């Protein structure tokens, strides 16, 4: 079911009625970002958008909101577009278990069609534009950034493919935000300790399996390419870079090769972030671009990010929840039922679990804090019983309203790590975290009047099925 490249996925979206082409002329600002934000407000089943008539350009094409809905996420996995969210979660978890899927290496790729090594000007090559009014410039925020571990360069799994925000800061210069909890920060640290620049490749406009894998919080030595293969059920195709040993997604529209400059920090931002707040201006690393390749008439895929929910939240909802689910199951294989870490990239997470004895649910909540993603997120972990669906927020609210006793069930752990973008962290990157145990107390924790849970009238399930058929 693998999509060959970005265009192949767009063609499927179009066939399924999930791609809207805007033929009327739009201005780069504020129209493209405004239309995309407006699309996100129309619900959770919206189409992708393709803008092909942009004022001042002759043949620019900009794709937005490509994975900005649950139908588009289902199509990413080759499932019917009306697949319910919880079913997408369990299917993603099943494919996650197929990791690693070996890669398929290629010698050439469509992006080799056009190559630029002199007088590079990113402002001319890409139809860049501002997303939010307070942004310090034009950004690239949905590209795969690839780098290797300098101390273990032969380790394929330690090669990282991640998505980081990048500000275009000159004709051949990008600013990048390597969050300290993320893998590229490890590579940058190695390079800076050696006093060497870090080779990087940036691939824009990819088919969605690698974008999904790149945005999944895998363990450090797990390959995003081998996870993309597992997600799409076929080996993922890669091709070598020319200036380094890095591997590149074969189907990319545009590829930038360059190096992260050791020891350089430069003013960057602000940028409207997924937290619904601007990041503020900070000094961040810089990438110098040495080589550009692209397909003829490339499509520029971009992502509007801002006050949730936007495409980001659909893109990183399930693939954040599933690793937490799998990593918790490694510790508690018989108890963990499902994890919903879809809120602000998992700053809030909801875990459904069985309990073996009193206090067990709190231990589950604490374990979530020490997973790779939990180190930077999971500021609030809500633990619910196994019969509460964590994707059904009214059920979660019911559990909080009736099962949680603030004296016993609210646990605060002081001064833990969190991503610096959390606007409430103080100092930036440090926060207290909280586990709310909304499970039913079990022995030896005997308290409350929980011996008479409400059952349903007989035959409700039979009626439910009958009514569904009648309502069809």
């Amino acid at each position, binding site marked *: 079911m693998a999509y060959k490249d970005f265009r192949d996925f767009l063609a499927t979206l179009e066939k399924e009625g999930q791609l809207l082409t805007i033929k009327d002329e739009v*201005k*780069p*600002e*504020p129209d493209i970002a405004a239309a995309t934000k407006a699309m996100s407000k129309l619900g959770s089943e919206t189409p992708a958008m393709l803008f092909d008539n942009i*004022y*001042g*350009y*002759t043949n*620019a094409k900009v794709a937005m909101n490509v994975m900005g809905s649950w139908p588009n996420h289902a199509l990413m996995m080759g499932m019917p577009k009306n697949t319910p969210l919880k079913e997408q979660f369990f299917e993603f978890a099943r494919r996650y278990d197929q990791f690693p899927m070996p890669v398929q290496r290629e010698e050439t790729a469509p992006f080799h069609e056009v190559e630029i090594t002199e007088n590079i*000007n990113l*402002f*001319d090559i890409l139809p*860049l*534009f*501002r997303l939010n*009014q*307070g942004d*310090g*410039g*034009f950004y690239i925020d949905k590209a795969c950034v690839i780098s290797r571990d300098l101390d273990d360069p032969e380790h394929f799994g330690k090669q990282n493919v991640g998505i980081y925000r990048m*500000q*275009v*800061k*000159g*004709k051949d210069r990008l*600013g990048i*935000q*390597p*969050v*300290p909890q993320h893998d590229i*920060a490890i590579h*940058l*640290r190695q390079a*800076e*300790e050696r*006093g060497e620049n870090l080779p990087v490749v940036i691939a824009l406009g990819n088919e969605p399996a690698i974008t999904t894998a790149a945005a999944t919080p895998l363990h450090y030595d797990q390959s995003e390419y081998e996870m993309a293969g597992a997600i799409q059920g076929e080996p993922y195709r890669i091709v070598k870079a020319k200036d380094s040993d890095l591997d590149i997604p074969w189907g990319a529209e545009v590829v930038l090769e360059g190096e992260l400059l050791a*020891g350089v*920090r*430069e*003013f*960057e931002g*602000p940028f409207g972030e997924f937290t619904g707040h*601007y990041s503020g*201006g*900070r*000094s*961040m*690393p810089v990438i110098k671009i040495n080589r550009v390749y692209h397909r003829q008439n490339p499509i520029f895929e971009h992502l509007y990010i801002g006050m949730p929910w936007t495409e980001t939240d659909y893109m990183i909802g399930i693939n954040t929840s599933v690793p937490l689910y799998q990593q918790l199951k490694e510790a508690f294989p018989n108890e963990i039922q499902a994890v919903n870490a879809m809120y602000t990239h998992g700053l809030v997470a909801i875990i459904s679990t069985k309990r073996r004895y009193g206090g067990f649910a709190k231990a589950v909540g604490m374990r979530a804090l020490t997973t790779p993603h939990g180190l930077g997120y999971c500021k609030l972990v809500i633990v619910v019983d196994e019969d509460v669906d964590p994707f059904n927020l009214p059920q979660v609210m019911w559990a909080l309203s009736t099962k949680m006793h603030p004296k016993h069930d609210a646990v605060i752990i002081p001064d833990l790590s969190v991503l*610096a973008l959390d606007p409430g962290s103080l100092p*930036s990157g440090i926060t207290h975290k909280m586990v709310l145990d909304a499970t039913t107390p079990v022995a030896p924790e005997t308290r409350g009047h929980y011996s008479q849970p409400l059952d349903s009238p007989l035959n409700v399930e039979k009626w439910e099925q009958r009514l569904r058929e009648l309502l069809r």
Partner: protein
Amino acid sequence: MHTCPRCESKKAEVVSKSPVEGAWEVYMCPVCIFTWRSIEPETITKPEKYNRAFKVNPADIPFAENVPALPAKYIK
């Protein structure tokens, strides 16, 4: 040279012109790295109308926090 709407330096330069001649230009300020297009709303392009909360004082730039932190050998 153009005036940066954000930090008001006079050093901003053209970095790109529209493929359709005369539609717009893109400018970049080398001091605060602000980037803007000539046809954006005046709240972006005009120094006096730029959102005050997002203005940058060039004197503050050297004190911006390093993210991630620099290894000790690079700190002067």
